[in-house]
């Protein structure tokens, strides 16, 4: 029994699949009734970080870095600061906005726990400008707990793909442009105001708010041994009810799809991980567990935990071209290979999708994308490579050249309506 587990409630009300998106409203009163106040950790920083380490919590923003290691690194510095990353730059993802809108107090709890763990006294909550319902919910939540609000500042961040990358976020908070900067220094060494900075995704923080109360053992009750816990997944495309759902890590893809009303049409492929992601063939792979360990052999990763279902009859090349074109438009314009490479890849994919008679554009795009893999980057043009590899298969190219009957609902975010309630009919299901 650890100190933290002893502090936990006898019967945590957030079991199973309702940890992050429980039923009930987003009020402070409801939150207190559900979880009670946060335990105090004064003087027990080390045991708090140790508990997080035992929990096996890994970052929920996309990179999946072990949270305890990050906490430890920032805790070692002087006057650290915490940045709760709710920017959610990934266009296909809506899970962070949904979490902040429906469970703002758990995100705030997480920021406070992180402050305690690293020994800081100031947290910045960075939310994309476009996520108005999330802003409203967090503003309301902060107003409901004034004592905590003194330590947490809500900041609006430009609505760009790269703005949530941690060095870009730090640059923006320091009064610069929301563009990635060269590292070192990494934010944990020198970030906001030159201080050691913990940049942590809001879903990761929400999990911290639970681990601090109920302990590592409770956290590990769901998920897999290597990847414990639940995750929020955004499901789009050819399912009957697209939306954000909370699932245990390791849930088979088929079950994830079923939770979203099932397939709307026969499925051809799945884009796993969002615009960062990789296409995997649906044939024979629907029983794959939603976990990095299972996706790795397919050279895929959970990434931003977005699943786009591509039905038969919708052209995977055209979809990939659209993603590449979007990313080309989102380049920070700082690095040559990105400025030139992404439009080149996009153009090659577009001409293949339009039925280019020869393989020249394919070869060019593949070469560019292969090279991108050997370079340091903030955007991942390399991921396009997996899609390209598949299209090199002549059977795939011949069959799927027809233009899509109707575009998949994973449009670039700037074209999307302002309010997420209307956007793609996304709903939260608990």
């Amino acid at each position, binding site marked *: 029994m650890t100190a933290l587990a002893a502090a936990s409630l006898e019967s945590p009300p957030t079991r199973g699949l309702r940890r992050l998106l429980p039923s009930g409203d987003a009020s402070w009163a409801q939150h207190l009734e559900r979880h009670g106040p946060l335990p105090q950790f004064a003087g027990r920083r080390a045991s708090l970080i140790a508990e997080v380490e035992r929990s096996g919590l890994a970052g929920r923003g996309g990179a999946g870095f072990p949270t305890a290691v990050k906490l430890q690194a920032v805790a070692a510095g002087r006057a650290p600061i915490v940045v709760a990353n709710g920017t959610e730059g990934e266009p296909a993802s809506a899970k962070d906005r949904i979490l902040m809108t429906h469970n703002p107090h758990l995100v705030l709890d997480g920021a406070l726990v992180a402050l305690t763990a690293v020994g800081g006294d100031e947290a910045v909550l960075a939310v994309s400008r476009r996520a108005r319902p999330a802003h409203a919910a967090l503003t309301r939540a902060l107003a409901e707990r004034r004592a905590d609000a003194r330590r947490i500042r809500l900041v609006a961040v430009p609505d760009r793909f790269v703005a949530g990358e941690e060095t870009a976020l730090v640059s923006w908070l320091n009064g610069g442009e929301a563009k*990635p*900067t*060269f590292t070192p220094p990494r934010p944990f060494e020198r970030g906001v105001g030159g201080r050691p900075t913990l940049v942590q995704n809001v879903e990761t923080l929400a999990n911290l708010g639970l681990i601090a109360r109920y302990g590592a053992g409770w956290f590990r009750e769901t998920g897999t041994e290597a990847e414990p816990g639940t995750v929020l997944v955004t499901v789009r495309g050819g399912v009957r009810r697209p939306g954000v759902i909370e699932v245990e890590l390791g849930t088979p893809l088929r079950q994830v799809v079923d939770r979203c009303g099932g397939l709307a049409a026969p499925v051809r492929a799945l884009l796993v991980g969002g615009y960062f992601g990789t296409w995997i063939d649906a044939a024979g792979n629907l029983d794959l567990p939603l976990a990095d360990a299972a996706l790795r052999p397919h050279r895929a990763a959970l990434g931003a935990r977005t699943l786009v279902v591509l039905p038969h009859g919708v052209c995977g090349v055209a979809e990939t071209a659209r993603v590449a074109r979007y990313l080309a438009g989102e380049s920070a314009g*700082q*690095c*040559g*290979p*990105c400025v*030139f*490479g992404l439009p080149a890849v996009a153009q090659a994919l577009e001409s293949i999708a339009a039925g280019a008679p020869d393989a020249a554009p394919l070869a060019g795009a593949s070469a*560019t994308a292969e*090279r991108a893999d*050997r*370079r*340091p*980057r903030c955007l991942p043009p390399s991921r396009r490579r997996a899609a390209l590899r598949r299209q090199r298969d002549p059977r795939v190219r011949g069959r799927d050249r027809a233009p899509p009957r109707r575009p998949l609902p994973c449009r670039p975010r700037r074209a999307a309506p302002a309010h997420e309630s209307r956007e793609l009919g996304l709903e939260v299901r608990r």
Partner: protein
Amino acid sequence: MSDHLRVDPILCDAHGHCAELFPELVSLDEWGYPIIDDGPIPPGLAKEARRAISMCPRLALMIEQRSR
């Protein structure tokens, strides 16, 4: 610890001197930006590496020490 050649892609303007001076580890893409071999700089080539670094007009090249 081993030494690796690294470019700051934000500073780099594709002058291409690095590939000319240090072709053992640096090649160029079709737009003239360097593609750098990620492996450790071979001990015998340390001098060439330093020369490429000092000749970069943008001062975008550097040696990064990595622990294994």
